[in-house]
């Protein structure tokens, strides 16, 4: 045995483990929103007419447009990973950037939607809302909380992707080491999947 004094600093790299950890985290997100989907389904069952009526007030066109935006952002995210796997650094950064732009577009639309509702006096705790029948109050409560929480996750995703852009630029994410980008990609796709279910349940039940 040698007599040097050093201990092993094992640079423990486990890409599969990293992805596994992220998937497990995604399950928690799935169940977080799942809890709210449970709420939605029970209340929808309880107040079918009120939900039907209230959903009419939501703008299906903006909703559909937002769905398309988010689906496209999922595409650009997946493509950005494919790009870095093929050592196309600039392409990857560009695609990550487009993803962020699309997410921004989604949030801008959301802002317009919400402010339109606010200007009509429909927001949690407002007199206008509280004067409506119970089922509609619950509908809007669910609408604001679920799309609001979803929007928060979109913003978090934008920040994460921006950080990944910087990592890619600096070469921390590269062709033979890109698990960070993959895990952020997984997070982003889940945000997309949640919207895939939110969209029909709120906008298309007329």
């Amino acid at each position, binding site marked *: 045995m040698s007599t040097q004094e050093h201990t092993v600093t094992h640079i423990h790299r486990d890409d599969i483990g990293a992805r596994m950890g992220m998937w497990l985290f995604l399950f928690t997100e799935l169940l977080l929103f799942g809890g709210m989907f*449970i709420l939605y389904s029970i209340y929808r069952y309880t107040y079918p007419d009120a939900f039907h009526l209230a959903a009419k007030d939501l703008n299906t066109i903006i909703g559909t447009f937002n769905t398309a935006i988010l689906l496209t952002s999922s595409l650009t995210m997946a493509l950005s990973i494919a790009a870095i*796997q093929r050592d196309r650094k600039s392409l990857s950064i560009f695609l990550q950037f487009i993803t962020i732009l699309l997410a921004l577009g989604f949030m801008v639309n959301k802002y317009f939607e919400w402010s339109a509702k606010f200007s009509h006096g429909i927001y949690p705790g407002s007199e206008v809302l509280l004067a409506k029948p119970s089922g509609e109050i619950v509908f809007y409560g669910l609408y604001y909380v679920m799309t609001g929480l979803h929007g928060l996750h979109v913003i978090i995703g934008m920040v994460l992707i921006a950080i990944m852009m910087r990592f890619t630029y600096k070469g921390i994410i590269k062709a033979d080491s890109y698990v960070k980008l993959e895990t952020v990609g997984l997070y982003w796709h889940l945000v997309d*999947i949640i919207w895939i279910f939110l969209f*029909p349940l709120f906008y298309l039940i007329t």
Partner: protein
Amino acid sequence: MEKNQEKHLDNSHSYGNYILVWLALMALTAVTVAVAGINLGGLTVATALIIASVKGYLVLTIFMHLKSESKTFRVFVSVALIFLIVSFILLFSDYSFIARN
């Protein structure tokens, strides 16, 4: 290469594959919106959910690479989904039988 860094193209598809999936997703979205206009009663919700599930499945398997990961990952996802679905079912087993006035 360490065994826990797999060959870097194992977990990937061609650009074209991703674009094809995206086209399918957009098409399914169009279908969902179109169907929503037709009144099928209770079936409307079911149809919407089925189409959403297909879209979700595509994102999971292709965009999130679930298809190319090891079986363990697919078992994980199934466990999580089954738990969510069973909770739904059990909850409705109570709610659908409450006598409401």
